[in-house]
């Protein structure tokens, strides 16, 4: 696996703002961890506090299907 490989990329579409820091979220590097497996992704992240936003469609879609696949490993 190369260092830059991303399993999922999502743009902020200029729609999201961190309430705590008052700045727009930017596309940032994040990692999903489950059952000792890591999946690098790019998601909207607050550049100051690092809040990573996981939208509903992602949580109930791809994330859920990967969870289920890993649970049977």
């Amino acid at each position, binding site marked *: 696996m190369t260092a830059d490989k991303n399993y999922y990329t999502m743009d902020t579409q*200029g*729609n*999201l*703002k*961190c*309430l*705590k820091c008052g700045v727009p*979220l930017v596309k*940032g*590097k*994040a*990692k*999903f*961890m*489950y*059952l*000792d*497996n890591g*999946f*690098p992704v790019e*998601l*909207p*992240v*607050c550049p100051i*506090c*690092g*809040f*990573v*936003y*996981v939208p*509903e469609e992602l*949580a*109930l879609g791809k*994330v*859920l299907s*990967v*969870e*289920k*696949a*890993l*649970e*049977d*490993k």
Partner: protein
Amino acid sequence: MTIKERSTKIYRTKTMFSEEELIEKERVCIHEELPYCSAACPLKLDVRTLVGQIAAGDFTAALAVYTKITPLPHILSQGCEAPCQKYCKLYDIGEGIRITALERTATQMGEINKGSGMLRMKKKKTAAIFGEGLFAAFFVGEMARKMYPVTVYSKYDNMYDMLKAAAPFADEEGIAEDAAVIAHTNIIFVHAEALTSEFFEQERHHYDLIGVSPSFLQILGGEVDETVMLWHAETVISAPIEQQDVIENAFNARKAALTADRLAQRLAPENSRGEEGCKETRLYTNLNGIAASASLPCGIDGRYTRENAISEAKRCIQCHCDECVRGCVYLQHYKKYPKKLTREIYNNANIIMGDHMMNKPINSCSLCRQCTVTCPNGYNMADICLIARQNMVTTGKMPLAPHEFALMDMEFSNTDAFLCRKQAGYTHCRYVFFPGCQTSAIAPDTVYKAYADLTKRLTGGVALLLGCCGAIAKWAGRELMYAETVRMLNEHFAILGHPVIIAGCPMCADMLSKHSHEQVIGIWDILAEIGFPEGAKGLDYPVAMHDSCGARGNIHMQETMRLIAEKLGCVLIDTEYSGDYSPCCGYGGLVMYANREVAHEMAKMCAERSDTPYITYCMACRDRLARENKESRHLLELIYNENAGVPPDISEKRYNRIQLKERLLREVWKELVEPVEYGFKVIFTPETRRMMEDRMILRTDVMQTLQYMRETKEAILEEKTGLLVTRHREGNVTFWVKYEQKDDVYVVHCAYSHRMNIVTR
């Protein structure tokens, strides 16, 4: 409490039980046993499929099934003594299927595959067959079909003449067709008017395999070993003296051909022959609901018309044993019978890396043990699934996702909602009322009234214990957690002075009687003895009784419940699969958490057994049936004149337990209870509630997420919608809440969760 999640990087396996035990368990399942007809046939004709194909109108497919057992289908079908027919199960209630007439019709109407087969290679070893007669004819057919180059030494110059002389009972068209098929193969006829031993000795050395007719064997003075059809001293294949039965000749020829195969490969002919000949079958066929019928008459040629053959074939009940599958949604869902399922589950436990495809099926059994009573041999699929779950837990292969909600709910019952109190004024109590977690969660007012009634009418003191018996941990395969729960409960029973446990739930009664140190009775036993309180009233319309799986094997409990229902004035309707045969509502074995689809099918099946409303004696059953929009009432609701109403959602189930505990502490033990306050108000719209129920998100999960947001100020503003989004990780789950805020009031628009943890990198 947080339960530690597993890792996929641990590669431990442990076999569930030994290979011998597996075989022993599999043997109990008779689904694969031969039907009576096939078992009686020495050639083991697949009668079910043959008749099934005819019933479907496909005579060519039926003939293909028939030709698997013989190279001479016309001759065999016209001369076969049909042992299969005598054993047809339909004779138990009426007339059996005319199998030979169907075979003859199939051979006449079906189209035979005359091709020698593109991929069938001519064998290198050569064979010679000396003599004539039925055995020799069948043996020639068998050898030719196996693609041996065969030379036949007889007084006939072709196959047709040989068959015609051997089978005078068969019609000319049939003989011609059988001969034509064999003529396609590598067969040479050498005319030999009278065979002699000298001629035999002279010719035999040209060939690798030698076969002789039984009458020529006598001339040669040979003696054949009937198990392998071999004259060992001379390595000559033959048969005992010519049999009268056509089927016997066909069978002997088949055995002889197998011996030829093994000799050709220089293998001992006695070994690896499989099961030959007729065999005993252990099959069970349920004839309930099958009407007796008579065979259709066939023509003088022993054949049917096309229409009559189809009608006769449709009478076949396709004997097989699916007693367990019929009553079990789980087995129906996975379309597997216990033997197959057991093997796959067993293999699943041995997988070190890769996908464990049986994890979900293992967690989808309700462990209700219905199969143990529906199976004629008592197959226990529940035990297999439970052992598999325990195995998965001990080897670190059990995912937490299917059971975590239920385990946390048990934890909630035994901590926040737990209550253990002696009756006021008593230092030792003779009894302790143990209503069960689901009874308190679904019908708290009924529990309240029941406890008040027991303390009023029983002497010696009645303590109360609100908690979970540990069934949830047991079902999840978590033995350590179960043992800890049992230890904790036993400790409390000891503090109460070892009282007699009055269980309010059949499952609790079952679990506690097995694992607590105390005597266990049911509240139903008490009420049947002391009578009902004032206001007890049955339903005014006929009702069906849904029995709990906790009462399986406990006829006393099942009968007591019916007695109580009748005493209350209920008119009970009998249903299929009631009493000991009752199916699970979908709560048992934690199916409703691990596989909602199967749980829904289970509840639906329970609900559909009767058009009438149901009464139950397990609150989980009442709840599951009500969720299927089936009117259902628990016996205790009728006894205490209560109606728990529409089923509570997952949050209300927790709220009910807390409220019951607080009410009891306040009103019975006069203790001051401080309710948990969050300091802010949250509004859940009906759609949000439904969404949360569907996603198994509790209102307390949302409250804690918002509480965390208030402490950290961490939230995202969705500028397009103006909604705020926040999250909080609680144990192994991250909860997300989408909301709008008006001062200290939060209106929740959406909640979702995921188990993966997200971090920045």
